[in-house]
Structures are given as C-alpha cells and as structure tokens.
C-alpha cells in the first residue's frame, strides 16, 4: 500500500506536511504533482530544500503520477501525494492515483469563496470537484493537521 495520504494543499510542501503529516502517516516519500513546479527550477529547488533528507521527494507532472507511484511502490516506500488544487486532484485521480480518501488541508481565501474551515475556502469549482469525488467513491476529509477533528464528506458509493 504505497499511497498513505493524498492531499490538496495550495502551499504544497510546508510545515504542516513536513512536521505533522509525514511523522503521523510514517511516510518516507513525497510525490509533488504540479505542472508549474516541474517547469520552474528555482521554485522546485527551493521546495526540495524543505523536504527532510530521509524523505524521498519526486516532483512530477500530473500525467506522470501513475509512473511515480509505481516507482515508489517498487521501492517499497510510503508516499504522500500532494497537489495544489481540486482540478489537479481530479487529474491525478484520473491518471491512476487510486486513492479513496482525499485530504484537503489548505485552499486559500479569495473574494467570493465560501469558508469551510479556518484554512480551507471553496470556490464553485471546488464544490463541483467535491461532488465529483464523492460520486466516484472517494471520501473527502477537510483538515489541516492530523489531530484536529476536521470535516468528512463521505463517498456516495
């Protein structure tokens, strides 16, 4: 079981992921699926610095997710998959990231968005994505850190 957490986080690699989730789910692999980061060496190098040395980091495009997961699986690693928004999460899922629980940790505030928790704000497209996941058998859990209760939207089948 290589994929131990699939998470939407607009900040991708940051304190909550490194200090809270990695030890909580005992992950030793981070798969950061984001087309923009892969295309930007500087952003990528900076983010790589934030990953602890004992954790393997893979940066990939959204169409490479299945390949990366397979690689991690072969290496017997426990992976966290990070995407930065809901439409990327759908792409990752369609491209073979077979998670059945999706965590939403951070989606920042913008004018017109609805507040779900203190750090998660939904635009119309996010509500649609939530519904899409639920109807495809994926439960969605909104929580920033492992020990808060969070809000669970159960899968519909």
């Amino acid at each position, binding site marked *: 079981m290589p994929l131990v957490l699939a998470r939407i986080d607009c900040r991708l690699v940051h304190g*909550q992921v490194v200090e809270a989730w990695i*030890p909580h789910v005992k992950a030793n692999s981070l798969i950061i699926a984001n087309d923009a980061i892969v295309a930007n*060496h500087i952003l990528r190098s900076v983010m790589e*610095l934030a990953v602890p040395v004992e954790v393997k980091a893979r940066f990939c495009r959204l169409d490479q997710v299945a390949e990366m997961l397979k690689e991690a699986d072969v290496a017997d690693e426990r992976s966290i998959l990070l995407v930065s928004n809901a439409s990327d999460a759908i792409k990752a899922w369609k491209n073979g990231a077979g998670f059945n629980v999706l965590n939403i940790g951070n989606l920042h505030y913008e004018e017109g968005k609805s507040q779900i928790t203190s750090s998660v704000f939904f635009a119309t497209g996010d509500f649609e994505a939530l519904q899409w996941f639920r109807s495809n058998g994926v439960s969605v859990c909104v929580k920033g850190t492992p*020990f808060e209760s969070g809000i669970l939207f159960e899968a519909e089948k």
Partner: protein
Amino acid sequence: MIGAVVVSHGIHASGLIQAAEIIVGKIEGMVAVDMTPSMGVEDIHSAVETAVQSVDKGKGVLVMTDMFGGTPSNIALAFLGTHPVEVITGVNLPMMVKFPYARQSMALPELVHHLQECGRLNITVPGDMLKKKPEKPDKK
C-alpha cells in the same frame, strides 16, 4: 507525558505556542509564561513554578527559554536543582514543532539534546544551499 513550559520576554512564548499549533495542531501539556516589564523576579519565579507544576505528569518538564543570559532563562535555571526539569535556551519554532513527536519516544535528558540539535540545524542560509546544488536538467 513530558510537559513543557515556554518562558520569554514579552509575548514571544505564547506566540510561539500559537504558531507551533498552526503547524502540528494542539500541543497538550505545554504552557507559556510571558514576562511583562511590570513583573518582578518573584512574580516570574512563581509564574514559572505554577506552570511547571501544572504540566508535570511524572515524566519531567522541559523549560524552553528565549535567550541564554536573559531573565526568563536565569529564573528557569534556578529550577534545575529543585524540580524535575531540563532547561533549553534559545527556543525557536523548529524546536517547538519537533517537541510533541519527539517526547513520544524519548526521555527528558535525550529529548533536550535532540531539540538542541533540531534548533541548530534549522538555522540556515538557503541561498548558500542553493548555490552548492548542481543544476539538474529535467527528465522529460
């Protein structure tokens, strides 16, 4: 469970706890003592003592102070001989967020040295680290 007391000049201590809890969630058994300019040495001493007692659950208490040589630190040192405490100075956020996980597997004497290491390793100049890194062309 090992308890913790964070002691600082001004509201740094309660601010550090607030910041750490954004990252790792609620930290049980950790309290702040914020030293205001109006407090006398006796006031601070008794505030720290009350705080230590409130989080002492039998495994000892780590007192984290803001600066070696400062009053919060000097007062905290006075508890070394009389209470089941270890003191660490120069507390920073990386030490704070490592604390709740590290205490699950370590006794107080080991924990204090582990946090010292974490605190030191996290003082970095990322510009230097980036300069040392060879450019890796993207695998396409």
